[in-house]
């Protein structure tokens, strides 16, 4: 491929670019700028989506939940299963990073300050500490342990509304497994500050022992679960999970099943970005077409002379191909370099994008979204960068060369 | 009014040690009605001298005067205005503006000078009649032959009644019959209206018609011959 002729033509192509260095630079710069902007926006939204996902999974949902069949069907907590050693060994394996077996109970509190519906989660504290960092965000008091009984930790928002303090006793109303309405006194052991006001107002935590005693009136001595909330590397780990619980009746749900509103937010972002990207690609292609065409048009006399001297159409295409190749490499390289530097920097320091919301952080489906976004640089984006440049410059050069050579054929 | 070049040098510094004289100690006086030619081989400096007279480039040493005023002291924009007010130009390749008709090409410098519409019309028609193209005013350059284009170029140069007309190889791109016609036109304009012409040329037919021939070699006027055609 790199024989003498090709090398010569390649050198010729390079010299043609250098001859119109300013214009070639301008063309390459325009394409690079367009691709940097477009891909940066993709990186921004990739980062945004990643943080939305993180915010969602950090609300007890996890990336996945394995649910007992009855709970999966009707959210009925009355038939929990045992979180046996066997099951634990099957599940708590990479890529699963942590697992929190939980019992779920609907309840409420009612005081002169008002009433509030609660979700009472019975957790195994050691597992839960690996799953969610609530234990690190205990503002007052302490986190739960396995031995304590009739202790509860509540959110700061709930504490403020109902004027609760540490060691206060709160009356929890709920229905037990027989359907009887019951009220029990629980001692507030800790107050946490985590994940926004809606979260703090809605979720309260007790240990497994307390939960079982409340719901079943007795403690089985085992760790039970209605659901096991799991953290992993991402949604692609579903296949692993499915293989692990293959011969059971357990059901897998991912966070998108459990929070469809947020799932759609991500889909919407993705759709918007793809649309935006296509528009940018088409726009830049249209606007670059003319300058590239003109670069070839003004060399027409030269090409005609070369044709008279014996240069074939095939060779002209080769020259054009080499020119396009060089421009693509240069433009692609500088775009990639600049993008990598820019996004790597921003991935470290973050970007406060609240200016897009007039200074206010977005909250959706009860989840406060981060105001500082860390754009995500991925290999995908760099591949897309190059493909974009290839598409834009490739089409522009191909069209320009085709039209010029067509005219050459007509005139010679 | 008189144009004068006094001990004018134009030096181009090609490298540290290497200086090239585009013009060397040029002394030249151009009076009203002069019909002169600068003659010499390619690269001798004829065009450099024309550019110096036109104020397009400034001399390294010496001065250019017009009616006693030092042109070299003027700013770039002032020299442009000076060219507009006092000079006309004829180019080897006509240099007509392709998007304007013959009439509009001639009109162009008159517009820049700020003449009224009536005056412009009068002058353009006068110029067109002088060059024999009265009926071609609304044609575009691509619709005219080479000779006709050069005539339009001449009309453009003279429409403003300049004090000096500079012509750089005006007959180089013309066939001999047309060239002869153009040369006769120059002669007529010089004799009838006392228009001052200075040519840079190789064309012997034109050289034979001028009153003064200045031979240029290596940027210097090596010889001046006066003769009457």
């Amino acid at each position: 491929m790199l024989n003498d002729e090709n090398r010569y033509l390649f050198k010729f192509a390079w010299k043609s670019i250098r001859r119109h260095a300013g214009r070639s630079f301008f063309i390459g710069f325009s394409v690079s700028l367009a691709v940097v902007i477009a891909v940066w926006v993709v990186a921004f939204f990739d980062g945004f989506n990643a943080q939305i996902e993180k915010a969602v999974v950090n609300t007890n949902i996890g990336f996945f939940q394995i649910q007992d069949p009855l709970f999966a069907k009707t959210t009925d907590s009355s038939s929990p299963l045992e979180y046996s050693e066997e099951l634990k060994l099957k599940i708590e394996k990479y890529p699963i990073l942590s697992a929190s077996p939980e019992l779920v109970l609907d309840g409420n509190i009612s005081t002169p300050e008002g009433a509030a519906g609660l979700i009472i989660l019975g957790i195994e504290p050691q597992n839960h500490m690996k799953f969610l960092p609530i234990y690190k965000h205990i503002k007052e008091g302490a986190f739960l342990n396995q031995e304590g009984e009739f202790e509860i930790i509540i959110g700061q928002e709930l504490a403020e509304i109902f004027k609760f303090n540490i060691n206060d006793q709160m009356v929890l109303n709920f229905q037990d497994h027989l359907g009887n309405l019951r009220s029990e006194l629980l001692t507030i052991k800790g107050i946490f500050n985590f994940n926004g006001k809606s979260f703090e107002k809605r979720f309260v935590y007790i240990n497994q022992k307390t939960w079982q005693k409340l719901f079943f009136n007795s403690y089985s001595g085992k760790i039970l679960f209605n659901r096991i909330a799991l953290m992993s590397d991402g949604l692609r780990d579903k296949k692993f999970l499915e293989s692990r619980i293959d011969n059971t009746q357990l059901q897998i749900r991912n966070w998108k099943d459990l929070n469809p509103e947020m799932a759609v937010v991500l889909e919407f972002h993705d759709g918007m970005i793809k649309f935006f990207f296509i528009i940018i690609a088409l726009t830049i292609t249209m606007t670059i077409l003319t300058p590239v065409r003109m670069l070839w048009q003004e060399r027409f006399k030269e090409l005609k002379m070369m044709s008279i001297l014996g240069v074939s159409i095939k060779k002209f295409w080769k020259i054009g191909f080499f020119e396009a190749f060089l421009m693509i490499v240069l433009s692609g390289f500088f775009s990639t370099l600049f993008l990598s530097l820019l996004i790597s920097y921003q991935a470290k320091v973050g970007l406060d994008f609240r200016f897009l919301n007039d200074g206010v952080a977005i909250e959706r489906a009860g989840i406060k979204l981060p105001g500082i976004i860390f754009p995500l640089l991925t290999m995908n984006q760099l591949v897309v960068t190059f493909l974009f440049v290839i598409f834009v410059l490739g089409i522009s050069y191909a069209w320009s060369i085709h039209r010029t050579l067509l005219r050459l054929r007509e005139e010679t | 009014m008189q144009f004068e070049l006094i001990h004018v040098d134009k030096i181009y510094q090609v490298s540290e040690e290497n200086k090239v004289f585009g013009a060397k100690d040029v002394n030249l006086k151009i009076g009203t009605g002069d019909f002169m030619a600068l003659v010499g081989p390619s690269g001798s400096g004829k065009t450099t001298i024309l550019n110096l007279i036109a104020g397009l480039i400034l001399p390294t040493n010496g001065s250019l005067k017009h009616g006693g005023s030092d042109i070299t002291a003027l700013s770039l924009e002032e020299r442009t205005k000076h060219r507009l007010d006092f000079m006309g130009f004829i180019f080897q390749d006509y240099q007509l503006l392709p998007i304007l008709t013959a009439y509009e090409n001639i009109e162009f410098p008159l517009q820049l000078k700020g003449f009224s519409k009536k005056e412009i019309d009068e002058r353009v028609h006068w110029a067109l009649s002088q060059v024999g193209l009265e009926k071609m005013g609304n044609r575009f350059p691509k619709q005219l032959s080479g000779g006709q284009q050069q005539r339009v170029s001449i009309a453009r140069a003279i429409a403003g009644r300049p004090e000096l007309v500079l012509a750089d190889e005006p007959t180089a791109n013309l066939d001999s019959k047309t060239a002869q016609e153009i040369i006769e036109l120059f002669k007529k304009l010089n004799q009838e209206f006392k228009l001052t012409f200075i040519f840079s040329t190789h064309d012997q037919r034109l050289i034979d018609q001028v009153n003064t021939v200045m031979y240029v070699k290596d940027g210097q006027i090596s010889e001046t011959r006066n003769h009457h055609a």
Partner: protein
Amino acid sequence: MKGFKFLLKFSYRNLLRAPKRTLILILSLSIGTGFIIWDLNFANSGSKEVMKEFLNQYAGEYHITHKDYYREDNKKEFNNFKIISDSEIPDKSLLTFTTRRVTAPVFVSGEKKTLGVLLTGLETEKEIKLSTLSKAVTVGRFLNPNSDKEIVLGKKLAHRIEVKLGDEVAVIGQALDGSVANELMTVVGLIDFGGGDLEESLAFTQIKSAQELLVMGPDQYHQRVDFNMKDETLPQIKGLAVTIWTDLLPEIGVSVRFVDNFTWLVSIVIVLVISLGLSNSLMITFLEREQEFQTLNIIGAKTIWVTVSLLIEVFLLGTIAILLGLLLGQISTNYFYHYPFNIQFFTGGKPIIMGGMIIQPLVRIYPVLEYYWKVPVMIYIFLTMTMIYPLIRVIRRSKNAI
């Protein structure tokens, strides 16, 4: 400037020098402009339509309440003991497009399960007329204005407490006199909000039933909800609070503003990209005419003349393209006014949930006047900025000798 007409003619003729090329330049700018106009119209009017549709379902444009009903710093919290009546609203015209509601945080019990929900007592006939809530009932029917003690539940709620049509549920709460309120109600319908949170936490009954449950007088209620979406200004009522939806659902307002602002950002990017390409093309056309500019300089045209003529060229090109673009934008906007745009296009067909409810995906787009001058101004600014370099280059290179 003397001879401005000639200058204009000169600039205009230069555009016609290479008509195909000029056409491509104009087209690329006009298509970009048209897209931006459409896009901005879509973002603005589209979001307004989505909000209208969303608010029409349940939330309403604004609420008239007791001034202490909503908590000052958190409008999600309310004090159910703060009630009002129509005698406190002097302007009776406000009653036409508004409907009364009684709110009651209660427990709804099925056979096996009890959940806390917000029971809302509705003026059934008015609700059917003013809002689209009744249309969200997909199983059974909406409330009968001539009956009482009927209840409509969110589908998910019914599923959770394991009740179906025709079942009776126990409703337990706190009456305004402090006593325990309880009632048996019959499930007549299930509302489908697309599986969002609201479906689990809302229940509806006739206003009379709610008033009786809470031991309220027949003229007493908690909210007057307005559904007149054409309202531009909020009424001022002495002694009462008027709370607009953006305060009640700030997260929705913020999301809408985000889309709006993001669309502007996209528009700026597109204009920048187009301007760069245009200035690239224009620079090449200018450089092609380098010799001509030299001739102009030689025969006496000053730099300013040449500069102005080039600027006029760019301005003319830009103006023609912008006008064409505005037309294209208007035509495309008009098209989507008559044939609404399906916003599920962005989600690959998946339903869009906002504020716990499914949004009706078909959105009518209509023109927003301010964009028809803001966008041209933005384009002119960008065009001018991106022309600076080509102009400087060309002017510099034109100052040459013969």
